[in-house]
């Protein structure tokens, strides 16, 4: 065991630091918010160095680097230290670009990959529907080929970023006579058209990160399909060979936990800091056990992934671990807040209202549940761990409906 990165990688880290030192923040001014142009120029420069757009071939504007988990990890550490922009966040770079590179037509790669990688084009994902959540493959949004166009009718839900997106990648039922998984196609479509109506979905926190998308005779050209007709399910499951962020989830859990310790130090009960209360100390230390286990498991996965080996069942647990930690943190935070737990997190401060410095914890109390549900509920995660991880048989009803 050796928790250092070794000489080759420490040299790489120094090189990255030198690069950042002379290029970020723009003009050396950390207090000024960088302009869009400055960010774009920086990203192009970093790509020339091989630091960004790493898994994208050069002809599509990438730096075409071989996958290297450890370099990826060092880049994230160093860039985040200076808050330097990495690849544009969002589902476009995360899911669409790797899918197109693996399964797309040449013209599709040329048209969509470069502007997505630059952050000029934003995507949203049209997967979930009101009646198709965990059982996604039962989706009903219809796509019919009429002349040279797909005509799409149906409704998508939980669509993050739909208001800002230029395009959607959308799972659509185009072969209704086929068994459920085989009837789906992966279509790309323009969001700025009359057939698309985006309605924000207000969350229990009061914010609106998601949307409902209503498609009424929405249209897209015949060849804006990735893979063949009926291959959409497979395309959406394309195994993506990019660098995994093995330690990212744990780093976030750790950051929230550090915040919780600060909260325990800054809040009081009966005139004494909460951090001095033996019961609170026990709960903090117990949560820390989970946080450290999650963090060090990230090291384990990084090691395995960097050698191209499969880390095994632990890799299926990352989301549930983050969820469970978020849940425990939320509960302790609410106790530390005491009567501030009565406050509405989004209320606009008005004259005469007592302000609280800790409203963000009330948001976290609710938002931790959003994390538990998003991208597959905790119960679905448990199915995956039970079935793929422990080798338990599939649920009888799921088995029956899959058409196998």
């Amino acid at each position: 065991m050796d928790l250092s990165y070794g000489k080759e990688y420490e040299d790489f880290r120094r090189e990255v630091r030198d690069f950042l030192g002379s290029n970020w923040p723009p003009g050396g001014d950390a207090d000024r918010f960088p302009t869009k142009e400055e960010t774009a120029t920086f990203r192009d420069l970093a790509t020339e160095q091989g630091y960004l757009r790493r898994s994208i071939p050069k002809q599509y504007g990438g730096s075409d680097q071989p996958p290297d988990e450890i370099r990826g990890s060092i880049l994230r550490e160093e860039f985040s230290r200076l808050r330097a922009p990495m690849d544009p966040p969002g589902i476009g770079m995360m899911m669409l670009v790797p899918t197109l590179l693996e399964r797309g037509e040449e013209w599709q790669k040329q048209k969509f990959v470069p502007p997505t990688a630059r952050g000029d084009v934003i995507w949203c994902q049209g997967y979930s529907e009101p009646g198709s959540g965990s059982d996604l493959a039962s989706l009903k949004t219809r796509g019919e080929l009429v002349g040279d166009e797909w005509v799409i009718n149906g409704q998508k839900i939980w669509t993050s970023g739909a208001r800002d997106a230029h395009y959607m990648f959308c799972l659509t039922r185009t072969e209704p006579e086929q068994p459920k998984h085989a009837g789906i196609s992966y279509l790309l479509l323009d969001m700025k058209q009359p057939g698309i109506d985006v309605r924000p979905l207000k969350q229990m926190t009061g914010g609106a990160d998601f949307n409902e998308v209503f498609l009424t005779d929405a249209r897209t050209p015949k060849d804006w399909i990735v893979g063949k007709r009926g291959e959409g399910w497979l395309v959406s499951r394309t195994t993506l060979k990019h660098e995994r962020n093995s330690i990212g989830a744990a780093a976030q859990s750790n950051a929230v936990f550090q915040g919780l310790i600060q909260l325990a130090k800054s809040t009081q009960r009966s005139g004494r800091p909460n951090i001095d209360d033996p019961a609170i100390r026990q709960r903090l230390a117990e949560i820390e056990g989970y946080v450290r286990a999650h963090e060090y498991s990230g090291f384990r996965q990084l090691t395995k992934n960097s050698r191209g080996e499969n880390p095994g069942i632990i890799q299926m647990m990352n989301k549930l671990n983050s969820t469970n930690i978020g849940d425990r943190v939320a509960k302790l935070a609410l106790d530390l807040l005491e009567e501030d737990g009565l406050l509405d997190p989004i209320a606009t401060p008005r004259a005469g209202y007592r302000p609280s410095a800790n409203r963000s914890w009330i948001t976290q109390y609710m938002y931790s549940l959003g994390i538990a549900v998003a991208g597959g509920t905790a119960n679905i995660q448990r199915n995956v761990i039970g079935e793929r991880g422990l080798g338990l048989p599939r649920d009888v009803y799921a088995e029956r409906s899959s058409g196998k």
Partner: protein
Amino acid sequence: MNFDISEEQQLLQQMIRQFLEKECPTQRLREIFESDTGFDAALWKGMVELGITGLHLEDSYGGAGLELIDLALVGESLGYGGAPGPFFGHALAGLAIQLAGSEEQKRAWLPRLASGDAIGTVALGEANGIWQPEEWQLVADGSSVLTGEKLNVPFASIADVIVVGVAGGGLVLVESSAVGVDIQPIEGVDRSRRIDSIRFEAAPCVPLPNGEAVAPRVRDAGLVLLAADAFGGGSRLVDMSVEYAKTREQFGVTIGHFQALKHQLANMAVELEPSRALFWYAAHAFDHIPVEAERAAATAKAHISDRVMQIARDAVEAHGGIGFTWECDVQLWFKRAMFDRAFLGTPAVHRERSAQLADW
């Protein structure tokens, strides 16, 4: 970055597992469990021949010169197999003498402990939940005569040499055959690792010169070994429960089909598997990251022994009625988990220590 165990370490674990499968199947384990002494000399000899007794001792004393991580991985495998015997106390006694002993003491004991000619153990516990060096009250008069009592000493009845914690946080050596040493069995719940009380009546002892500095290190190593053992036992409980779910049928299908049970089993695995990295890290820190070692050991022991105790409860439930019987093997590992949880202090003790060490 290499946070993984080596091929040699994997082989070592495999070797121990195979040995235990062959030499100590649950049928044999049960016989030892229900025997008077809980000690099977032939089985222990076999374990000694695998090299587990000298792993962490220096080559010049007949050891293999390896680290706590190697010892912990052995501990995990023994926990998985439910291995009865004095490994835990023996390993800690060797470590204490190696780190705190004089050259003469090392030469007298380490080769014999490494080769298995002698058995060692540690006497750290006292009445009223006392385990930690700063709490010890047994007084070594003039550093050479002991009068008083130690409790919960693993396999003292078969030990040749006992490392005893004394008031002031130091360590002394006592030979179990010495006058004034009265060893009485305690009815422990984990019958694979027996415990005794020792009453000292003006018993002769010799101090380990560096004992005060080393006692907390011995405690930390003990915490890591208990965490590793608990992890191994927890893995066995998860495996047994999963296996049962794949074979037991109700309503015409194996019960593993049912989501309620599947989720319970998944939760057991999710509580356990990440904590593997916790005992690895604590063992690694013991030899390589001194500033974190003490806290990492406390966290690993508190977290894993607590998680595994709950996993053991879940395992009983997952087995249904049969899980509650003496006949079901779950009880063997359930009790092992109880030992690992209570020995050297409960999770609450180590969480508070951890909070203090973090300056909370």
